[in-house]
C-alpha cells in the first residue's frame, strides 16, 4: 500500500504536472503562431473599448445570463469557487500577503467551497443526460465532469474529515512540507500525511487531480485559456 501511495503522491504528480505544462504550452504556442484570419469576424453593434468587452464576455458570461439564467448561476458559482480553490492550493505552498487582503484561514473555505463545486458539477453532469444536451455531449464531457467531481469530493471532505478525527493531523504545515519538497525536487512525504486516519482521501484526491491535469491539455478544458482570445474575435 505504501508503494502505491508513494507512486501516486510523487512520480505521478511530477508526470501529471509535466504533461499539463508541456501540453498546454505546446498547444498554445501552436495555436498562436498560426496565421490570423484575413478579415474581421466581429458582430455588431460594436462596443468600445473592445478588449474590455471581451474581458466582460469571458468572465461574466453575459450571453449565458441572458439566455439560460439557471445555467449561469451554476457556472458562476463553479468558476468562482474553482478560482478560490486554486488560490487556496497556492497558499498551501506559502502564504501570500496579496491573498490575505481578505483575511482568512488557510486552507480556504473549510470544505464548503468544494461542496458548492460538487453541487454545480452534479448539475452539469445531470444536465448532460437530458436532451438536447445529451446528443450534443461526447464522452470527454462526462469524463471531465466525473474526474473533477471525484477530485473535488475527496479534496473538500478532507477539511471535514479533520474535524471528525483530530485537528492536529494533516494540517497546513504537513501539506506545506510535502508540497515544498516536491517543488524543490527533494520529494519527501511527512509521516502525518501517510498515516493520518483520512490519508486515503488525500491520496485519492491527488490521484484524480493527476488524471485531470494530464487530460487537461487534450480536452475542451483548454477553454480556460482560449475564452479570452476567442471572445476578442467576436468583439473585433
Amino acid at each position, binding site marked *: 500500500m505504501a508503494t502505491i501511495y508513494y507512486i501516486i503522491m510523487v512520480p505521478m504528480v511530477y508526470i501529471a504536472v509535466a504533461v499539463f505544462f508541456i501540453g498546454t504550452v505546446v498547444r498554445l504556442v501552436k*495555436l*498562436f503562431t*498560426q*496565421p*490570423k*484570419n*484575413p*478579415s*474581421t*469576424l466581429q*458582430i*455588431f*453593434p*460594436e462596443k468600445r473599448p473592445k478588449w474590455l468587452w471581451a474581458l466582460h*464576455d469571458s468572465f461574466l*458570461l453575459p*450571453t*449565458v445570463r441572458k*439566455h*439560460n439564467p439557471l*445555467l449561469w448561476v451554476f457556472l458562476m458559482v463553479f468558476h468562482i469557487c474553482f478560482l478560490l480553490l486554486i488560490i487556496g492550493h497556492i497558499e498551501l505552498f506559502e502564504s501570500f500577503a496579496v491573498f490575505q487582503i481578505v483575511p482568512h484561514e488557510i486552507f480556504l473555505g473549510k470544505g464548503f467551497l468544494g461542496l458548492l463545486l460538487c453541487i454545480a458539477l452534479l448539475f452539469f453532469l445531470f444536465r448532460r443526460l437530458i*436532451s*438536447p*444536451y445529451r*446528443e*450534443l*455531449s*461526447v*464522452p*470527454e*464531457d462526462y*469524463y471531465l465532469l466525473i474526474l473533477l467531481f471525484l477530485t473535488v469530493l475527496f479534496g473538500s471532505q478532507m477539511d471535514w474529515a479533520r474535524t471528525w478525527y483530530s485537528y492536529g493531523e494533516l494540517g497546513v504545515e504537513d501539506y506545506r512540507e510535502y508540497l515544498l519538497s516536491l517543488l524543490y525536487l527533494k520529494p519527501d512525504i511527512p509521516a502525518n500525511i501517510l498515516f493520518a486516519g483520512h490519508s486515503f482521501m488525500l491520496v485519492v484526491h491527488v490521484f484524480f487531480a493527476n488524471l485531470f491535469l494530464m487530460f487537461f491539455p*487534450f*480536452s*475542451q478544458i*483548454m*477553454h480556460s485559456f*482560449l*475564452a479570452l*482570445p*476567442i*471572445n476578442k*474575435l*467576436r*468583439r473585433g
Partner: protein
Amino acid sequence: MDQNTRDELLKLFQGKLNQAMRLYLETCTRCGVCTKACHVHESMPHVKYIAAYRAEIVRRIYKKYFKAQGKLWSSVGQSKELTEMALEELYEAAYSCTGCRRCMVYCPFGIDTQMIMSIAKILLVGAHAEPEMLSMLADMSIEKGKSIDIFKEGFLTGIKNLESEVVKKWKMEAGDTAIPVDVEGADLLYVALAGAHSIIPAAAVFNAAGENWTLSFFEAVNFGAFVGDPSRTKLILERIVNEAKRLKVKEVCICECGTAYRVMKQLSGKQPFEVSSVTEVHARYIREGRIKLDKSTFQGAITYHDPCQIARNGGIMDDPRYILHHLTDDYREMAPDPRYNWCCGGGGGLVALGDETLDFRMKSSKVKAEQVQGTGAAILSTACENCHTQLDNLNEHYHLGMDVMFLTSMVADALVQN
C-alpha cells in the same frame, strides 16, 4: 472513399485552419446555450439543427486528423473518419445553415458557425458534391470577368433600354445620361445585380442627388462565397476591385445584396476606394439634404428586416432606420431588437438554389414569419436581394398579406422633384 481523395480533401481542410478557425474548433464545451439561436431549430426542433451539433460534425473530423486526442484516444471525443457518409452529413449541416451568425450572439465564446461550415462547404466542393447550380453560377461570373468584351455590347444595349424607366422616376436635363457606364474619374462605382429592379431605382436616386457615378459591368453577387470556395470568391471579387481601380473611383457602392456587401467590405483588403452599401449612401444623401423624400408616398406601418450580412455581420443598423423615419411616421421595430433579428432563412445560397430548397426554406423560417407578423406592419422593407425573395416567398406561404419592398425602391418612389 479512396485514400487519394481523402488526402486531397484533408489538404483543403488544412488550408482553412488559421488561428481563428482553430479557436472555433477547439473551444466549444457543448454547453448548448446556442440551442435557441438557430431559426431552423426553433422552427423545426431537431438536434441536428443546433449550431453546436452542426459544428461538431466538422469538429469530429478535425479531431481525427489534426488533433492528438483523436489520434491517441479516438472514442473520447467521438472523432470521425472522413467518408462518403460523413460528406452527406456535412452537406446537410452546411446547406441547412444560412450563415446568419445569430448563434454567435448566444455562444459564451462567440464561436462562428458560418466559418466552421465553410470547411464543410470546401470539402463538398473538393468532392464534387456541392450544389451544382451554385458552382455553375460562380464559374459564369468568373468567365464574365475574363472576357468582358464579349458581354459588353449586350450589356450596354440592355442598360440603354432601362434609361427611360430611370427618367420616369427622376426627370433629368436633356443630354444627361441616366445610367452612366464606364466613366473614368467618377466618384462612385455602383455595383448592381443582374436585374432592372436593382439598377433603375438606384440610378434615379444617384441622379437626384447629383452624384458623379458610374455603373459597374459586373453583378455584385458572389456565388463563390455561397458555395464556400475562397479562390473563386476572390476571383469574383477582384473583377470589381480591378474595375474600380481602372476607373479611379473614390467609393464602391454595393447594391442591396448582403453577401456582396460583406465580401467587398471585409475581404477586399486595403484599397484606394471606400466600400459602402447603397443604404449608407442613401442615408448620407438625406443627411446632407441632397435628396428629399415624401412621407405620404407609402400608406400603413412599415417594418424593416435586417439582412444578417449587412446588419449583424456588416454593422449597418442605424442607416436604414434613419431612412425609414423619413418615409413614415409609423415605423415598427421587430421584437425584441435588431441584435436578435431572425434570419429570413434564405442565406448561404439557399435562395439561389430556388425551388429545390423552397419547402425547407418555408418550414425552417416559421419563426421569421411570426416575427414579421408580430409587427402588424403593412409594408415589410429590406435591403438584400436574397432576403427579399425569401420574405416574398414567406409572405405568400404564411399568408402574411404584406407588401415586401426594397428600401432602395421605396426611396426612389418617394423622391421629391424640386
